[in-house]
């Protein structure tokens, strides 16, 4: 009974962690915070996989001499090894984009940047219209 309660508790907290990570990604407007959120989100998903792979009283999946030892499931471990490396690749690319954005815009807040972009966008269209008009005359 106690063990099953704690077991469910683990699942639930892992789900909460995932959603906190997801919230940081889609709720926050700071570009660096979004990447941090993504890291939290992905790490929590890793926890879910590894939790599946656990066997009570099992040992790490490295073969030993004793015949009757139970090994935890190696497959989730392999998948998560892959996913961790994919995660760090995403983080690195995201950070380099944030650096470039900060250099070009002088800010990494989404509100600020979309305001600048909006000005740019109308600016482009309007000035070009006037240039075209001049050309016609």
């Amino acid at each position, binding site marked *: 009974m106690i063990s099953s309660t704690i077991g469910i508790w683990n699942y639930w907290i892992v789900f909460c962690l995932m959603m906190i990570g997801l919230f940081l990604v889609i709720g926050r407007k700071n570009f660096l915070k979004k*990447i941090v959120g993504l890291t939290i989100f992905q790490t929590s*998903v890793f926890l*879910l996989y590894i939790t599946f792979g656990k066997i009570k009283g099992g040992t790490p999946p490295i073969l030993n001499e004793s015949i009757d030892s139970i090994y935890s499931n190696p497959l989730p471990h392999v998948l998560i090894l892959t996913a961790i490396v994919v995660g760090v690749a995403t983080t690195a690319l995201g950070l380099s984009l944030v650096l470039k954005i900060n250099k070009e815009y002088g800010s990494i807040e989404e509100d600020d940047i979309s305001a600048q972009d909006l000005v740019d966008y109308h600016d482009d*269209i309007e000035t*070009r219209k006037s240039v075209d008009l001049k050309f016609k005359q």
Partner: protein
Amino acid sequence: MIDILTKNLPILVVLCPLITSLFVVLIPNIFFSWILTTLSTFLTFLFSILLYQEIQIQSHISYALGKWMPPIGIEYIIDKVAIIPIIIISGISFIATIFAYKMIPDEIEKKSISKVYSLWLLAIAGLLGLVTTGDAFNLFVFLEISSLASVALVAMGAQKDKQALVAAYNYLIIGAVGATLYVIGVGLLYGITGTLNMEDLTNRISDLNNNKALIAGFGFMIIGIMVKAALFPLHIWLPRAYAYAPSAVSVLLAATATKASLYILARILFSVFENSENLINNTLLYVILPLSIIAMFAGTIMAIYEKDIKRLLAHSSVAQIGYITLAFAIGTKASIAAGFIHMFNHAMIKGGLFIAITSLGFFIQKRVTINNLSGLGRAMPITFFCFVLCSLSLAGLPLTAGFISKLYLIKATISSDAIWIAILILISSALSVVYLWKMIEVMWMREGRKIVVKENPTIYISLIIITFFNVYFGLDASLVVNGSFEAAEKLIGDLK
């Protein structure tokens, strides 16, 4: 030698661009890296044609990687369904690579060109790996290869316009969230079945009806793929990414990227979960059908009000994706076939339109807005002519490829007693004429600057090829139509 080739065709299609990308990055010379890239994409196209012939004989090829029998090892599955996106991706990427010869050195700084070609090949390889794999987790890995490479390619547009960086960033974050949601879904399914192989998964979930984890896992997988396929409310990354990417990259992405994800969507819906009919029917009816109809209209209306042409085409892509998912949502054999036909034709149409528009941008050296277009049609007759043909194809006028896909789509809706959907499709097509006419009118009728433009053969040869196919498949569509019907039959079998 020939033996080895035919035996390993499924993997060679993916491996060819993948391995070449590792070498291209080391070549400092612009010309040679382009040559190698072209050769590699050409070989890939050749392999996929050979694969097409092979599939006519065998109809289902399973390739066990590392000689470990599935479901223990990873498996590549090629059947009559998978061959459609393979041909689309490899064919379009070959044409886009020819187009890239002039465009990439124009927009990207010399030092990073070999890296860009390497990323270019990686993006193609990722998409091809995505559609060939028969393993749910391997799909994620290739999804990430293609999305990281395409994000970097989009970001390379920053040398012309800094907004490319924000576009790339959003593409990366939204894409990564989508991929992670997909991984959660796969994880839940793996937790209750213990397998990752798609065919094995199909068998093992058949006796798990109404399992809550099954439903949740399915939901997360579908949401993740819908993000990648840019289905309506999740499409926000698409217009900006396509609009600010370097020209050649826009062509490649617009014509191929979402097609791969749409194919995965179809495969998950109709093949992996074929045994949980209730779940699928509800999803199709209550989620995908309404979203596709909204996408059809929202995309078209956004396109009508858009002034930036590349963005306009991207919005129109959202609408076209709506047509394809609508076809899937109706869920009969005829409609799914229509979906595949449109997938194929849309790749050609959008590829052609983007090539035409970006080559206009190349000559005026500015962002292509509706006002900048004035008079360009007269200055560049060949490009303009091809642009008009592709536009007609998009609007669905007879004798073009677009007509064929609309025809089969409407036939399918009528035969499944959904006349109102057929009417909605017609209205939306009529609306798309508005924005297409607007562009053509400005280009031809309006006076513009008197620029003398020498149209460059390396640019318009790819445009002519793609326009030719647009017309050819409008006149003789039997190849596409037969292939699509065979695919649909393979997907949903004799059920309906």
